């Protein structure tokens, strides 16, 4: 009770500090010096502190299982392990928004203390834009999704967190993802501030780049964690389903990836300024748009929290206010930089720009696939669902030129460099890659030309990125690692897609199921009682031609609060392939439905994503060495 009150009032204090800040900043803007009024920094810190306090209060309520708080009552249960009680704090709509708010205030504080060299007006305008976002979030929390509503009479027991969400990976997935989403708010605010103050310059880009890398890094890791969770926990045997909510996280990621590249061109050559600004603004708009689509309940998925129409309308109005603000700022205040150089067709800039277009194309496909059904339903009342075939058809063919360009691009010189144009070796590697692809697919009886080229191109990028480690001087280490990680990722995804196999059958204890290359034997079944669920573990022995016999023990968990059955896949992982077995009970029957999958190179998908992301981190630490 005490903590809910305290939490609620610190939120209100947060709002008061926001209003204070706007007032003080406005006054400070008029004073013509280059030193920020020290009060501003203090108020920003106080605001951060009050939001932090509020967040801690919510965590304490969850730990104490204080069911007088509505949020705790709806999302927790006394029988839950402590770790999941804590992670329950952000596993629901209200708590996750509070976490977002905390990140918003934290980031603006970090921004203000790290950007010492930037002009004062730019910093204050950034702060003002950020406060607009913070006020939006605060009002949203206080009016429609207050995490500190209390219940009377106090219930004895909570309704429990969805057991499907009781997973260590999922406990850290949301906070990391929010760091990525909300990181883009700084990119948004500082871009708008830079346009207004005519500060779209190299120094601005240098600072912006760090924020782009930070958000991009967290978003990459966040998406990967979500994907790992889907793979291990949902038991569908895949890692990406083109689910609307997955798409929503991928869109800002693509946008940030494009931005990461264009901001480098901008920093070096002062080109693509408008493009960079548009991408900066879009990244955050896409993050917010994603929040709208998920939280309003327009899209249904595992991520949908209980929806309330008022919430949807609030986020919608807020989102479009932000869009309109950025449109006005962009059209009224933007001054093109006079120094723009002429573009040269065969240059690094052009290749980055073209690859940017490809990324934007992928983004548009995903955007259309995600929101087209909504538009269609409103306009024609027809319900359609857009599935993987749509994305596969529209995206995969364009991956080929994208990968080729990505291989060659970093080897091309910047415009003013006068070195020789093209390396003969690049061609040789290309043909070698195609031959290897032809050979690998040939011995496995794949005859599709398209697959051969796709694999060939992926191999090409892979070899080129390895080659870059040894030869090129002008490519820095972080780029080498990220590009190598990406090539490994694409290669693993393609090989995984080509060589995966799956067997689905119903089987009972003592039975043996024979398939083309081996057999599955269902040996026995055991029951256990755990703290908050009953566990049923099946033992299966799988024999495949050419491999050792393996034992897999998938599990069914029957939770009682709320009553849900989840299936835990058993997965044998090695560096070549994952063997994945999941079982489901068939009601009123001794039979169990099993799904046995062989997934080559799964582990490489995760490892390469980590490599991809770590490239970004290295850039943050080594940036000074590389910049001339």
């Amino acid at each position: 009770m005490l903590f809910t009150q305290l939490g609620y009032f610190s939120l209100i204090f947060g709002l008061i500090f926001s209003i204070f800040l706007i007032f003080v900043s406005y006054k400070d803007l008029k004073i013509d010096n280059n030193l920020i009024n020290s009060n501003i920094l203090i108020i920003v810190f106080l605001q951060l502190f009050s939001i932090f306090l509020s967040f801690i209060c919510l965590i304490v309520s969850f730990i104490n299982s204080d069911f007088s708080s509505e949020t705790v009552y709806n999302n927790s249960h006394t029988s839950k392990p402590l770790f999941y009680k804590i992670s329950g704090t952000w596993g629901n709509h209200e708590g996750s928004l509070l976490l977002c708010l905390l990140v918003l205030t934290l980031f603006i504080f970090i921004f203000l203390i790290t950007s010492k060299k930037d002009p004062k007006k730019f910093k204050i305008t950034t702060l003002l834009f950020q406060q607009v976002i913070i006020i939006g979030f605060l009002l949203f929390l206080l009016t429609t999704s207050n995490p500190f509503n209390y219940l009377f009479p106090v219930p004895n027991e909570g309704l429990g967190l969805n057991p499907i969400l009781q997973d260590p990976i999922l406990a850290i997935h949301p906070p990391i993802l929010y760091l990525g989403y909300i990181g883009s708010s700084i990119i948004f605010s500082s871009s708008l501030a830079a346009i207004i103050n005519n500060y779209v310059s190299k120094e601005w880009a240098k600072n912006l780049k760090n924020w782009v890398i930070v958000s991009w890094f967290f978003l990459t890791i966040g998406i990967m964690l979500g994907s790992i969770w889907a793979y291990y926990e949902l038991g569908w045997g895949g890692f990406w389903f083109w689910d609307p909510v997955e798409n929503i996280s991928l869109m800002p990621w693509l946008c940030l990836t494009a931005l990461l590249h264009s901001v480098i061109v901008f920093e070096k050559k002062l080109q693509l300024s408008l493009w960079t600004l548009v991408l900066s603004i879009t990244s955050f708009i896409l993050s917010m748009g994603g929040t709208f689509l998920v939280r309003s309940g327009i899209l249904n998925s595992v991520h949908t929290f209980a929806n309330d129409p008022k919430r949807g309308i609030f986020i919608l109005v807020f989102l479009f206010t932000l869009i309109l603000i950025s449109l006005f700022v962009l059209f009224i205040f933007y001054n093109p930089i006079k120094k723009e150089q002429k573009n040269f067709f065969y240059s690094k800039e052009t290749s980055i720009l073209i690859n940017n277009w490809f990324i934007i194309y992928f983004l548009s496909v995903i955007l259309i696939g995600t929101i087209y059904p909504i538009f269609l339903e409103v306009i024609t009342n027809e319900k359609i669902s857009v599935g993987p075939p749509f994305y596969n058809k529209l995206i995969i063919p364009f991956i080929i030129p994208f990968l080729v360009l990505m291989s060659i691009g970093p080897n091309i010189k910047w415009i003013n460099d006068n070195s020789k144009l093209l390396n003969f070796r690049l061609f040789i590697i290309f043909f070698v890659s195609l031959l290897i692809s032809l050979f690998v697919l040939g011995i496995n009886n794949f005859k599709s030309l398209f697959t051969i080229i796709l694999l060939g191109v992926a191999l090409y990028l892979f070899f080129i990125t390895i080659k870059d480690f040894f030869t090129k001087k002008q490519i820095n280490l972080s780029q080498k690692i990220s590009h190598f990680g990406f090539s490994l990722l694409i290669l693993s995804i393609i090989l995984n897609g080509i060589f995966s196999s799956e067997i689905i059958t119903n089987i009972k204890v003592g039975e043996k199921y024979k398939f083309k290359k081996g057999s599955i034997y269902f040996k026995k079944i055991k029951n256990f009682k755990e703290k908050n669920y009953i566990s049923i573990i099946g033992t299966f022995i799988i024999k495949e031609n050419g491999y050792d016999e393996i034992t897999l023990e998938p599990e069914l968990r029957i939770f009682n609060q709320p009553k849900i059955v989840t299936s835990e896949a058993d997965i044998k992982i090695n560096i070549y392939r994952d063997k994945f077995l999941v079982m489901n009970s068939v009601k009123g029957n001794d039979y169990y439905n099993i799904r046995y999958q062989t997934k080559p190179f799964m582990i490489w998908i995760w490892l390469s994503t980590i490599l991809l992301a770590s490239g970004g981190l290295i850039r943050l630490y080594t940036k000074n060495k590389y910049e001339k």
Partner: protein
Amino acid sequence: MKNKTLFIIILIFTLFCFFIFLKSLNNSNIYIPPKNLDRKLVSFNTTTLFGNKTIGSDDLFIEDKIYLLNLWASWCAPCRYEHKNLMKLSNNKSIKIIGINYRDSLINAKNFINKFGNPYSEILTDKDGTIAINLGAIGVPETYIISKNKKILKKILGPINSEHIKEIENLSIK
């Protein structure tokens, strides 16, 4: 402002998007009064999910029981929520639940049933959504309470909650 036309075009497009989203927000909340009350269920023929045999509505609603015709899909989140209530109802001998699997992949639908249990005495498929249209359904999940002779007693929009359960159980006693 230099590029007025572009600005206006973008502005109009943005506003257009805004209204589409606004409308789609409202859409999910529009309540359509139950028209089908005391009317007869339309006839339809379709195949079953398990066994793939053809079955008609005339073969189904013949016993002297309360029938629930439940429209569901594996991709529909509220259906998951509702499922445990259907499981509860399926224990009641005087109630028969018939499922219509709406616009779903058969594999996903089967997995859904295998995972969460099967409360249905029969599951029919509605791959292209035509049965749902004929029924006058506006979304999933949706449940029709039907008595013998295919008379529709009530239509429940959205997932079945504990109050609906009481209501259905009361009907089955009469």
